[in-house]
């Protein structure tokens, strides 16, 4: 990951910034005022206990949630001012934790949906009968290792395959910022590493990658900046090598942790399937 640090020094473009951003759900403070600056090409991971607000932060950055106060800016543009979904989709794309393919459509159409931001209505309609620009889709499916599944029905795929299709769709959409919510949560460690390597390869040097994770060891191996989130506020924000086990202990400690079920945050977020209260692997080694 040292090569990434080199890139950080040379590219100064600030890609994402949150300025005193908060999010309230009916009086419940899901996110306390948070200010973050992320540069283009960084690899950032949000770590923290369940219900701490990691998903909410991702949703704020992706524009799917709007902040109660404060500002979210992508590439210098305030997200609130973006009216067209099209422009937003060029900036940011997200791979959510829950499966979100259209089950009745083929994998090909699900992946080509990444192009809907560029297509007009009639082209989209036409493509359902005669797939347009299918080269985008077949290349993307190749890259995620699902070549040959183009004509399968979306709903017939396994969970891991559906996730890869979602990644292929993101490839086709080609946004500048890639967000991933718990990308390895339901995968064994080997598959988890494969997916992370894939995400890193896709992000390359030009795109910014932000993920929320449970697995501390994988997070430390693949990301160069760690932001600890606890009870809706930022606990620490450091380059990976400066994060100590003590900090992680504090981050995940059960004392003083607000109960995820009492807060409305996890029930309002679309991804409330993870019910783990402690990190998956022991990080004390």
């Amino acid at each position: 990951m040292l090569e990434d640090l080199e890139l950080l020094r040379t590219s100064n473009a600030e890609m994402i910034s949150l300025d005193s951003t908060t999010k309230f759900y009916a009086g419940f403070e899901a996110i306390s005022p948070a200010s973050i600056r992320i540069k283009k090409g960084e690899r950032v991971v949000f770590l923290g206990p369940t219900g701490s607000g990691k998903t909410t932060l991702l949703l704020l950055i992706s524009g799917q949630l709007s902040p109660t106060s404060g500002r979210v800016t992508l590439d210098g543009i305030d997200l609130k001012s973006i009216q067209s979904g099209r422009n937003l989709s060029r900036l940011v794309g997200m791979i959510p934790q829950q499966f979100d393919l259209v089950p009745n459509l083929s994998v090909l159409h699900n992946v080509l949906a990444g192009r809907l931001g560029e297509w007009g209505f009639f082209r989209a309609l036409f493509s359902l009968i005669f797939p347009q620009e299918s080269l985008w889709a077949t290349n993307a499916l190749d890259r995620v290792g699902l070549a040959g599944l183009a004509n399968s029905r979306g709903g017939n795929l396994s969970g891991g395959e559906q996730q890869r299709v979602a990644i292929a769709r993101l490839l086709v959409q080609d946004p500048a910022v890639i967000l991933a919510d718990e990308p390895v949560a339901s995968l064994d460690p080997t598959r988890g590493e494969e997916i992370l390597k894939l995400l890193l390869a896709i992000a390359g040097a030009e795109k910014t990658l932000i993920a929320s994770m449970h697995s501390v060891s994988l997070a430390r191996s693949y990301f160069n900046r760690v932001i600890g989130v606890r009870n809706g506020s930022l606990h620490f924000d450091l380059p990976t090598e400066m994060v100590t086990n003590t900090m992680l202990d504090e981050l995940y400690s059960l004392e003083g942790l607000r109960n995820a079920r009492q807060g409305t945050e996890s029930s309002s977020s679309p991804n409330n399937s993870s019910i783990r209260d402690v990190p998956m692997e022991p990080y004390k080694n």
Partner: protein
Amino acid sequence: MFLWSLTRIDWGSGLVQARGLASVGQFAVALLRVDLTPYVVSSALRASWVTVTYAFAGLSVALALGLPLGVIGSGVLARRIRSRTLSVLLGRFALASMRSVHELVWAWLFVASFGLSPIAAVLALAIPYGGILGRIFSELLQDVSGPPLRALRASGASEWQILLYGRFPMALPDLLSYTFYRLECGIRSAAIMSFVGLGGLGHQIQLALDDLAYERVWTFLLFLIVLVVLVDVWSTSVRRRITQ
């Protein structure tokens, strides 16, 4: 409330007419002697064909009316709350008006305007059925599962594209099955409408009843039953193919 309404009926001796029971008996027995002579069977076939074409034509027009109005009535194309409310109000009002008049009344109206022509039958079927289909379609399109729609929106899709790539595909099995069910109802309605003189199985049944030829009535009823069963089978096979 249902139980209360039962107590309001006069269950006394006036419930069944004296000769009525005897007629019912005669009618039931006639099933055993159902008339299958070539002449009757061929007129049953011809009448079935007329009824079926009325039903199909009526449902096709009903779809053409109900689908767009259903989309408008669901409000799924509007992104802002104000336009969505307007869309839903207009759509639902139009659909409800179409539905509120029974097809027989429409038939009577159209026969008065167009005379005894097939157009009268087709429109009389299409308008109320369009209203019914549209109402159900609007709800099916609204009730589609959320995460795939959110993903489409995040990919930059417009509300129209979300309708095309998300709502329609996901609602399609239910849309189809409800349409087929209405087609079945349409066959029954078309049969009844032929009592108005528009030809078809109902007309034949009426003629046979006038002649008190219960065996012939059963012939036509059996054809009606077979038609409905055939539509049911077709509907099941289409639904299976779409959802495999």
